[in-house]
């Protein structure tokens, strides 16, 4: 598995897309800092970008890589190798190279700007951690979609739909539900609703750091326990890990049965 991981990783490192991705984040970081002159505000803007763009790029890239390297995968399958190690290797190769582009691309300008001397460093590292988690989650979801769909166009369509659903539509439905049932106690529902969407989950994680004073404005006891203590942070991280593990398990399961 490690060999395949290494191969995929270096293959991607050489590819143009990784550089484009890396350059994009580098540019974003530089421009944000240049325009804002303020680390904490840049972190907020960056958060908005990360929770929208990272999942999108993860999904598209994952699907693209799978379809592109399909012939090579078939070649590998002819070798005496475990199927799960082939696909997990590829998956991790993609996810890790994307996370690396993210961390380096954003990290470098911020470090040069004096991140280590600023008190925004915790917010920023949290941002990078959630960004990496989102990459892992959405690449895994993309691999799932690609594995289940032989048709490339269909695969891409589903991938984009998945992103659109989790990034925008889900929140819309969520908001409608909350407003519709506003006469009932909703704090449990709203927390569960957040847990079920990795984008919302990472958003909440960052909100815990940035908007804690607003979040404490609501009276619910469960909210208070969730946001007022480290409980929220721990639960969110556990859920993020669950969100990585489940799709990866499905990749393994699916790849074992798939007929090539």
């Amino acid at each position, binding site marked *: 598995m490690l060999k395949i991981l290494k191969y995929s990783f270096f293959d991607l490192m050489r590819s143009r897309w990784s550089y484009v991705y890396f350059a994009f984040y580098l540019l974003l970081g530089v421009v944000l800092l240049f325009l804002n002159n303020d680390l904490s505000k840049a972190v907020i803007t960056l958060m908005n970008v990360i*929770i929208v763009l990272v999942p999108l790029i993860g999904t598209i890239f994952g699907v693209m890589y799978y379809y592109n390297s399909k012939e090579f995968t078939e070649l590998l399958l002819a070798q005496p190798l475990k199927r799960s190690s082939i696909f997990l290797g590829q998956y991790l190769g993609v996810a890790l190279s994307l996370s690396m582009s993210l961390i380096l691309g954003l990290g470098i300008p911020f470090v040069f700007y004096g991140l280590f001397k600023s008190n925004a460093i915790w917010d920023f590292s949290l941002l990078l951690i959630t960004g990496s988690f989102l990459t892992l989650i959405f690449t895994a979801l993309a691999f799932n979609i690609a594995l289940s769909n032989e048709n490339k166009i269909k695969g891409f369509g589903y991938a984009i739909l998945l992103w659109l659903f989790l990034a925008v539509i889900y929140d819309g439905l969520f*908001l409608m539900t909350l*407003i519709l049932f506003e006469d009932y106690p909703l704090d449990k529902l709203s927390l569960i609703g957040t847990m079920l969407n990795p984008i919302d989950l990472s958003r909440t994680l960052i909100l815990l750091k940035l*908007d*804690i004073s607003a*979040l*404490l*404005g*609501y009276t619910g006891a469960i909210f208070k326990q969730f946001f007022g203590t480290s409980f929220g942070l721990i639960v969110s991280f556990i859920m993020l890990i669950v969100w990585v593990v489940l799709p990866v398990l499905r990749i393994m399961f699916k790849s074992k049965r798939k007929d090539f």
Partner: protein
Amino acid sequence: MNFKLGFIATMFMVTSMYAQTIEVCKTCPVTTLKDGISAAKPYDTVVVKKGTYKEYNVLVDKPLTLIGENYPVIDGELKGEVITVVSDSVTVDGLFIINVGNSYTEDYAAIRVKRSKHFVIQNLVLEKLFFGIYIEKSSYGKVYHNKIIGDAVEEYNSGNGIQLWYSHYVDIEHNFVEHVRDGIYLEFSDNCIIKNNVSAENLRYGLHFMFSNDDVYQDNTFENNGAGVAVMFSKKIKMVNNTFKENWGTASYGLLLKEINDSEITGNSFKENTIGINIEGSNRITYKNNNFSNNGWAVKVKGACYTNRFIENNFLYNSFDISYNSKVNDNIFDRNYWSNYTGYDLDKDGIGDVPYRPVKLFSYIVNRTPETIILLRSLFIDIIDFSEKVSPVFTPDNLMDNNPQTKRITW
């Protein structure tokens, strides 16, 4: 020589006749505060030496100066009020008063000034108290440099740090109050000046006004209280250069204004409060040169607020800048700096070319269904906020800042 000595002797006699000093200590002829005070004549000085004096209901009924040396401890043994001043021109200085009695029927205080004028209460340390310094129908006094540390847990059975009731022209300066119900409380007290105090960790309010007019408070710090400052049913209050920070919680405000008219709020800084200023039924107030940074809501406007002016303030990184609960707006927002402003300034005059709308649609949704706060900063919310910004339907359409500044305002 003889003449000189005689002169000094007569001078001494004159002065000692005029103002005598009585010393109170464990080994002195006078061993208790009460005896010291009853032995003193008007305008004498009673010096209390270091030691512990278990006394309560000490009545100061003549103009005296009561001075503690090296902070003698006056222990009320939880039996009632410790010192009561009922005479004009009394100075109390340098005492350490502990164990004030607790009562549900009477407001026992560590020191109470009753119907007096020209009093000075300074350099006291009060601990384990019910009420701290209680000024009742007294005027022209000074409460200066006291430290009050309570241990209040519940609102109903705790008292206030410094309380003024029907007292006018009192200066409250350089006091430090924490862990009581209300740090400083003014009721029916006009023309008072409250300056350079620190009021922190109090159960209810750091500073509380009720029916008190023409007061000034400036350069105070209110931190981590139930709510920073509550100004209610008062007129012509000046609030200058205060700091309100970290007042967190469900009903926590930096500043709560209720039925306040014709006041002035200038140069204050509101940091990391759940709600910076909560305004209800307040008219003709000028907000100028204030800093609102990292609050949940910088300004929350409830009903019946007319002709208020928000001018040249900085709104920095608040989750919500302004929140309204109606469609009517009669307040003016002008020349403020909004960190959320996304417009441009082509003619480079420092004023944004596009007006800024500080009220987001999402703040209405949160007002209606508070749980939706969990969707803060979501892409979907940004989209509906944007569409509302383009064509206002739910938010007051005249509520905007026509001259948003592009640079942070300094003063």
